[in-house]
């Protein structure tokens, strides 16, 4: 009898504990898996997610940072193991995922309604579904040390020829003129995209569609020049030592330490690159030939999407929060250009960047960033091709031809 009572009471206790453990706000705990690509503020972003979780106690966050969106998500999509909430770039990869039903269409979310229309096309699939919300408006430009420019009596160059002259002057003063980062996608964000924008977009304004159909012809001198320009900078000694082993963060670090006078990087790095000890200013990348109008880059930043699955409701909640009440945390930490209509909080945007982007908005013709329009399978080729050109293993024309072939093969 006593034994039975003991057993019963233990069972009751256990049941009570289990019951209360499962009860959190009257709902079952949801573990929201988040895979985020945010290389400049990985920890901070985790903190933002925790703020969201604290406002919704029944949600627990499982946060992974990922290095490269497509590389990480492809196998997950293939094996059906998508995280609930993911970073996603505008472009063909995400479009494919939403049309296959792996990502959900977020057109009717509060987040989408709060997003400016300009950043929606890159995140819209051929079937008209919106697969993600951009993480910001982005562009890439040249950051430079104001004091050095003043000392050397130079001013921001407006075209490629002036750019070469400026670099030559800096080199003559014994300094590194510009940082180029060929190890990873950074070079595609900068040199390749601007080269493509200025050399190829003016005569191919329908390049988005051409890439989709595989009719974009890239085995051209214009495209070869995109590679040749970087080689020229390296050959003339304008770039940093250890060029071929400089990766994204290495480049940023070099600039912040004052080891180079200029740095070609994205607007999303303003938060890190502007508050240097020396005064830093920016100017639009001078990849246009003299006499030709610049084609600036207006593009989207890596954004977010929600996967189809049992937690999509919570995923949408997070999406709406990040693009609404929680937006200012994210934006303030990065200082990037907002993509939302109503930021619901203070926006920290450096005046210099604001000036830059307002100026860019005045241009009639702009282009996107590489990952928004090239086939997903060719993305890792661009840095590799630059490396081969810099090593002297491929001529710029050969690199152009190789990319052309890969882009066409990918669409087959």
């Amino acid at each position, binding site marked *: 009898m006593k034994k039975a009572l003991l057993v019963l009471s233990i069972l009751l206790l256990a049941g009570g504990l289990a019951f209360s453990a499962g009860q959190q706000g009257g709902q079952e705990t949801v573990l929201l898996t988040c895979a985020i690509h945010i290389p400049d503020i990985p920890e901070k972003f985790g903190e933002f997610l925790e703020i969201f979780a604290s406002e919704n106690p029944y949600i627990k966050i499982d946060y*992974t*940072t990922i*290095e490269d969106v497509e590389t990480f998500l492809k196998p997950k999509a293939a094996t059906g193991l998508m995280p609930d909430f993911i970073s996603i770039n505008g472009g063909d990869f995400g479009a494919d995922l939403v049309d296959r039903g792996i990502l959900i269409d977020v057109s009717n979310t509060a987040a989408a309604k709060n997003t400016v229309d300009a950043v929606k096309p890159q995140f819209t699939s051929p079937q008209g579904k919106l697969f993600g919300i951009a993480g910001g408006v982005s562009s890439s430009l040249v950051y430079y040390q104001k004091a050095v420019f003043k000392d050397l009596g130079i001013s921001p160059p407006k075209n490629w020829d002036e750019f070469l002259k400026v670099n030559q002057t800096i080199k003559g003063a014994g300094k590194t003129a510009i940082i180029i980062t060929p*190890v990873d996608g950074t070079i595609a964000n900068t040199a390749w995209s601007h080269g493509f924008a200025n050399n190829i977009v003016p005569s191919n304004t329908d390049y988005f569609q051409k890439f989709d159909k595989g009719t974009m012809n890239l085995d051209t001198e214009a495209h070869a020049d995109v590679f040749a320009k970087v080689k020229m900078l390296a050959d003339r000694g304008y770039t940093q030592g250890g060029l071929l082993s400089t*990766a994204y963060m290495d480049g940023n670090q070099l600039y912040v330490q004052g080891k180079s006078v200029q740095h070609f990087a994205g607007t999303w790095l303003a938060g890190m690159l502007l508050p240097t000890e020396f005064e830093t200013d920016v100017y639009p990348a001078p990849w246009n030939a003299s006499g030709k109008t610049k084609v600036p880059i207006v593009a989207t930043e890596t954004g977010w999407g929600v996967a189809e699955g049992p937690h999509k409701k919570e995923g949408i909640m997070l999406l709406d929060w990040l693009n609404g009440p929680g937006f200012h945390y994210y934006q303030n930490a990065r200082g990037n250009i907002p993509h939302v209509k109503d930021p619901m909080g203070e926006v920290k945007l450096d005046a210099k960047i604001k000036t830059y982007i307002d100026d860019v908005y005045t241009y009639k013709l702009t282009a996107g960033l590489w990952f928004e329009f090239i086939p997903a399978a060719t993305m890792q080729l661009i840095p590799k091709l630059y490396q081969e050109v810099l090593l002297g293993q491929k001529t710029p024309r050969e690199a152009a031809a190789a990319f052309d072939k890969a882009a066409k093969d990918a669409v087959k």
Partner: protein
Amino acid sequence: MRKKKMLGYHRRRKLLINLVMLLIMLALLMPLWYVLNNAFKAEQEIVRRPLVLRPQDFTMDSVIRAFRALKYPARFLNSSIILVVSCFFLVTLGSAAGFGIALSNSRFLNRIYTILVAIITLPFQLAMVPLIFMLKAMGLINSYLGIALVYTGWFLPFVIFLYTGFIRTIPKELEESGRVDGCSLLQSYWHIYLPLLKSITGTVLILRGVPIWNDLLVPMITLTRSTLATLPLKLFSFIGQYGASMTRWNLVFGGTFVVSLPILIVFLALQRLFIRGVVSGAVKG
């Protein structure tokens, strides 16, 4: 150690060798010192004085931050569970298989043994891709069991090789006398042989345990949930962000130190065993 005649020639030669070895040791330890001393500095000091650790610069701050950033206790637990389960499988299945092969006198089993030894040379990459899909189909992705089975399948041939070699050195009379006393094979295995296998099991644990603990590839391709990440995997994602994440050197060095610590401690405490383990493994070869 062997006795040597204490000729002046020998003493001089010993001295010379010792000197050279000392230099080599220094060169060898330099990279380790580089990491170690920077793990205990604040960020600015790392950049300013990368090789010298002044007492006034000493701080546990980097290590602690790295510890937190890596979510260390959870990762440690993951790595440990995977290690224990894998080793459990390897030891039980491997010793049983070694026992069966060594004692059977069967041509069939001997042929199997030869094939197993040949399998040791096959690269993991050959099985890698279909293995993931298979694990997924079996629902073993994101599970300790799944990873343990992968390691087991991969390393069993080598482990069986070690056990078989060792058991073969045990006199057959042992088993025969056991049989005379009425022991079935199972009882023989359990009561007679298993206790004798302690030393070779130690070898197995060291030779395969360390690589399993430190492995990057298998967790990288079989785990999707970060909560299950192992220590090396977490460290890699930590530093793998676009090259050496130099913006937070203190975290990186602190992290490296703190991830290597458990194995370093175990190694220092058991170094005799480690070395004996490798040596006896080599002799079996």
